[in-house]
Structure formats: structure tokens, C-alpha cells
């Protein structure tokens, strides 16, 4: 719109159509870069300011507590990225996280390490498949299916634990506990899953199909791609990852905490959106989600440090405001890109 923006396109004479992709207007290029890498830029900025002004922030004990305590919850955002890429949403992950934790503790309590790992995986996969089938085959709105899923999984958890009265403990000598111990084990597990997720999204047919699906479902169906199967698999993946996260979380905490996980779906959605994945689907990246979760974790750490007297209510307020701001910015940025 302004003269400076038009200059690069106006100056060189257009020799061939092949040169056309280079001539995307500056404004549009900036907008697209901001949307994709904005979270990373803000993350670097916030971390730099925090390191410069606070003596405790850049210490290893603080960083390891940020990483070790939060890493498993980031898996919810990983699964959510896939779901949101298809234009859907999965509100059941918070309940699934809690259910996975209780199942793992129950498994470790009764059967040992293998049962502790397999039971949550199986239940998470089954629950996710059920939700996926309702979305993909019955054509129901994702948010209402997973909202019912949120309620149902929480109910299942309550039924398993005598209405929350029984807390299953992971035996102190169980090998299962080692999955959640220290800083490095959680970080390595979560990093490996993020890398696997990124490869799945960018290098496989499944990833290409789900991206296409989020871009234009009708076109994808007309191209003969397996729309219903891909959608079902996406919810299966999200449910399994959430249950896994819960299981690993209970390995760290040493028990299946029944009241955990309320509202985690909101943080997961916020991380994905902050990471630059479009809520309408079809565009996004796992790397962006990683930036999103790190940014939120650093901000929460700073809030806990500076505003601890206000408690978690202040964190919630900032969370909500931040999410609104980012979504607003994203909408404006993507509009800038479409206008030209």
C-alpha cells in the first residue's frame, strides 16, 4: 500500500514468470514470518530480559525446574497441534491427562511397569478413536464431541477411584518411577516425541493428508484422500499422547492425582495458537508449538517469581489476555497476507 512496499516489485522489469515467487510484497512476507516465528522472537526477547534483570532466572536449578516439571504437559500441545491442523479441536485432553495418570498408577500398583505403560495407552487410544469416529463418521462438531469426552473421561476417572476417595500410589520401588525422575529423562522423552511428531507432520503421507484436510476438506475428499480415516487417526493420536503424558506425569509425582488436569486443554490450545498454527487448520508446525509451550512456561515462571502473592488467579488472567492478544494478532496478520 505504501510506496516503500511497492518499490521492490516496481524496480526490476519482470523478465520471466519464474521470478514471480520472489516478488511477494514485503509487508506480506513480514506478516507471514511474524506469524510463523513470532513466538520464537518473543521467547528470545522475554528470556533475554528476564536473564538480564533477574539473578535467579538464568540459573540451572530454575531452568531444570521449568523443564522437568512441565515437559510432560507439553505433549498435550503436541497432540493438539495435529487436531487443530485439521481444523478440529480436542477439549478432552485435560481429563485424559488425569485419567492416564490414574490408570498408570493403578497399573503400577497392581501389575507392574508394563501394565502401567500399556493400560493408559490402550484406554487413551480407545477413547480417542471413539471421539474420532464420532467426528469423522457421524459428522458431529469436534468441540461438542470432545466436550462430552471431557465430561465422560472425568466421570470414568471418578468411577475408578471411588468418587476420588481412593488415590493409587506408584510403589516406591517400582521401575516405572524412573520414567519421570530428574530433569533429563522427561526432557529426552518429550523431545523425542516432538521430533517424531514433526517428522510425522512434514515427511509422511498422513501429515500431508491432514494438512490438506485442514486447508480444504471438500477438495481433499474429491482428491480421493482418506479424509475420515485421517481425522479418526488424529483424535486417536491426541488421546494417546494425552494419556501417555498423564502416565509419565504420575511416574514423576508417584501417584495418580485425581484432581489434576482441569483446564489443561486451554493451556494446550493457547500454546498451539501462540506457536503460529492457524485455528482454522491447514497451516502450522510442531516447532512453532514447541516455541509456544516454552514461551508460556517461561512467562508462568516469571509470574510465579514476581507476582506469587496473587496466586494462580493472576496466571489465569495473564493466560487469557495473552491468548486473546495472540489470536487477534494472528487474525490481523493472516488478513494482511490475504489482502494483496
Amino acid at each position, binding site marked *: 500500500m505504501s510506496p516503500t512496499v511497492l518499490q521492490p516489485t516496481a524496480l526490476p522489469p519482470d523478465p520471466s514468470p519464474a521470478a514471480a515467487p520472489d516478488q511477494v510484497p514485503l509487508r506480506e512476507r513480514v506478516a507471514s514470518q511474524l506469524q510463523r516465528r513470532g513466538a520464537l522472537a518473543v521467547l528470545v526477547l522475554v528470556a533475554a530480559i528476564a536473564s538480564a534483570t533477574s539473578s535467579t532466572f538464568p540459573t540451572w536449578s530454575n531452568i531444570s525446574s521449568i523443564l522437568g516439571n512441565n515437559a510432560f504437559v507439553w505433549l498435550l500441545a503436541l497432540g493438539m497441534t495435529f487436531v487443530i491442523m485439521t481444523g478440529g*479441536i480436542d477439549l478432552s485432553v485435560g481429563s485424559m491427562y488425569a485419567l492416564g495418570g490414574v490408570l498408570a498408577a493403578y497399573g503400577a500398583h497392581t501389575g507392574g511397569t508394563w501394565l502401567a505403560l500399556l493400560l493408559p495407552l490402550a484406554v487413551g487410544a480407545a477413547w480417542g478413536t471413539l471421539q474420532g469416529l*464420532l467426528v469423522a463418521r*457421524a*459428522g*458431529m*462438531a469436534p*468441540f*461438542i*464431541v470432545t*466436550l*462430552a*469426552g*471431557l*465430561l*465422560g473421561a*472425568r*466421570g*470414568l*476417572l*471418578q*468411577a475408578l477411584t471411588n*468418587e476420588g476417595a481412593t488415590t493409587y500410589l506408584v510403589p516406591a520401588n517400582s521401575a516405572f518411577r524412573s520414567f519421570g525422575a530428574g530433569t533429563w529423562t522427561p526432557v529426552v522423552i518429550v523431545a523425542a516425541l516432538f521430533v517424531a511428531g514433526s517428522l510425522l507432520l512434514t515427511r509422511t503421507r498422513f501429515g500431508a493428508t491432514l494438512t490438506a484436510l485442514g486447508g480444504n476438506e471438500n477438495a481433499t475428499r474429491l482428491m480421493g484422500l482418506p479424509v475420515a480415516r485421517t481425522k479418526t487417526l488424529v483424535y486417536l493420536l491426541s488421546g494417546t499422547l494425552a494419556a501417555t503424558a498423564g502416565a509419565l506425569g504420575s511416574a514423576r509425582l508417584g501417584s495418580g492425582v485425581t484432581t489434576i488436569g482441569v*483446564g489443561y486443554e*486451554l493451556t494446550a*490450545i*493457547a500454546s498451539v*495458537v501462540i506457536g503460529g498454527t492457524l*485455528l*482454522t487448520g491447514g497451516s502450522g508446525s510442531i516447532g512453532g508449538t514447541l516455541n509456544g509451550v516454552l514461551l508460556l512456561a517461561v512467562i508462568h515462571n516469571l509470574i510465579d517469581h514476581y507476582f506469587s502473592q*496473587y*496466586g*494462580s*488467579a*493472576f*496466571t*489465569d*488472567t*495473564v*493466560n*487469557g*489476555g495473552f*491468548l*486473546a492478544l495472540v*489470536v*487477534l494478532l494472528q*487474525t*490481523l496478520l493472516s488478513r494482511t497476507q490475504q489482502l494483496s
Partner: protein
Amino acid sequence: MSADAWASSVRDRDRLLHLLQEYGVYAALTLLFAVAVGLDTSFLSVSNVRIQLFQVAPTLLVALGMALVIGTEGIDLSVGAVIALSAAIVPLYLGYGLPLAMAIALLLGAVCGAVGGAMVALTRIQPIVATLSLMIGVRGLAELFNGDSAKPVTDSALLALGSDSFAGVPLMAWIAAGCALLAGLVVRRTTFGRQLVAIGDNRQASRLSGLPVRRVLIAVYVLSGVLAALAGVMIVGHGAEADPANQGLTMELSAITAVVVGGTPLSGGRVRVLGTVAGAHFMQLIAAVLTQHNVPASYTQIIEAAIICFAVYASQERGTR
């Protein structure tokens, strides 16, 4: 089976689904009521009916606002948080009398609705995300206003609003009934109601035909916020305490359930006020019957989840899409 017979059986199925969508909730409500009375005749006692009315009134208020929002193909997840905000604000201003405290609570509800509505209408953010951010942020704000613990409420006017009756029926139920009547009139008899439904049906076409899309959308979310704030005041009055950390939790879910069970499609373009009233009562009765027969809360939750799924499936519009 001949093609003809097959076609007619499909037609029968479609007609059945259509009937289910139109009248299912009334039939289910009647059946449930009959079962409840059959299991235990004391269900009909005046005290029990009054308890049910007290409990259903706030949900119904919120559900009415939600029905309007869903009619525009939107959703308002912030209603529970607005209830919490209203619960946090009322005790702060009760010293100036109930009318002023209530006015401020309703005003803040309207502001929350306006913010959500503006995000939806002006910047075209999806309703679910716009109101999600409000849901998180506003509840945090409410807890900040209130402080750590629940506050007891002793103001006699507010307690009277929450527990008194007029002609044997709780005041809260009268207010909810009045609002339902108003909502019905708005949807059926006013330009605003027609515009709201038109926008839910096809926003693009409504905009092109010159309807004030943005204004109507914002107004709808403001209405939802005000109704939720009113429900919050009632909840505080009935419970005699203000507890923003817990009051209104999962209210958005109950309200959406009531609307959906009442046969309003989530795809917008239709608002069923009477259906919503029946839906709210149905969910209230289900919970009451299960609780009164000692079914654990966990099973109640699972059953409610199944009912939501079934109701959404039945109320879906079946077309070529």
C-alpha cells in the same frame, strides 16, 4: 428389498429423526417425569418440586443466552467465568444496596459479552477461541477481585432473592420464566430475532443483504453475558456465599447441553426457546433422579456425556453436505 421399499424406509428413518429432533425433548421429559414419579411418588411433593425449580433457574437463564448465541452459529464458553465475576463483584458493592450491586454485576457481564462479541464480530475470531480466552481470563480476574476464600453473604435482600417465593413458586423461577418468555418474544416477534437467525443461517448472505451483522452479533453476546451475570447473582443469593473459584464451573457445559438437548442445531440458523426450557429441565431431572437413587456422581457424568452425544447426533441437520 426393492429400490422403492428401500427409498421409503430411508424416508421413514428421516421422518423419525425429524420427529425426534422436533418433539423428542418433550417426549423424553414426560417419560422421565413419569419414571421418576413411578419410582418414588414423593418426587411430586411440593418441597422436591421447589428444590428442582431452585436448581434449574440459573442454568435456564444461562441456557437462554447460550441458545441465542448458538442461533448465530456461535458459542459462548465464558458464561461460567461471568458467573464467577458476578459472584466476586456483588459482595463488594452490597453495602450500597442490592440494586446497585446487581446493576454493576450485570454491567460487567455486559462488558464481558461485548468484548467477546467484538472479537467475534469485528475481527472474525472463531467464537470458541474468543470466548475461551475470556473464560480463562475472566475467572482469574474474578478470583483476584475476591481474594482467596469464599465470602459469606448476609444481605437480607439478596438472600430473599435466592430463597423467597411468590405464589408458592421461587422468585428465581419466576425470573427465569420471565426471561424465557422475553427470549421467545425476541426470537419470534422482533426484527432483532429475525436478523439473529438469518446471520446464523448464512452470515455472508446476511451481510450482503444489508443486515447490521456486527451490531447484532455483539448484542447477542452482550445478552448472554448479562443473563449469565444475573444467574451469578442468583447463585450467590441462593447459596448465601460468594465463591468465584467454584461457582459457575462447567456451567457452560450444562447450558450448551440444555440448548442442544432442546433441539437447537449447533450449526445455527434456528433458536428453540421452549425446547431449551425443556432441555434444561430434562438435564436437571436426570441428575436429580440419579442422585436420589444413589447413583454415584461419576456415572451421572458419563450418562450426561452420552446424552449430549446422542442429542447432538439427533439434532444434526441432514443434508447433502
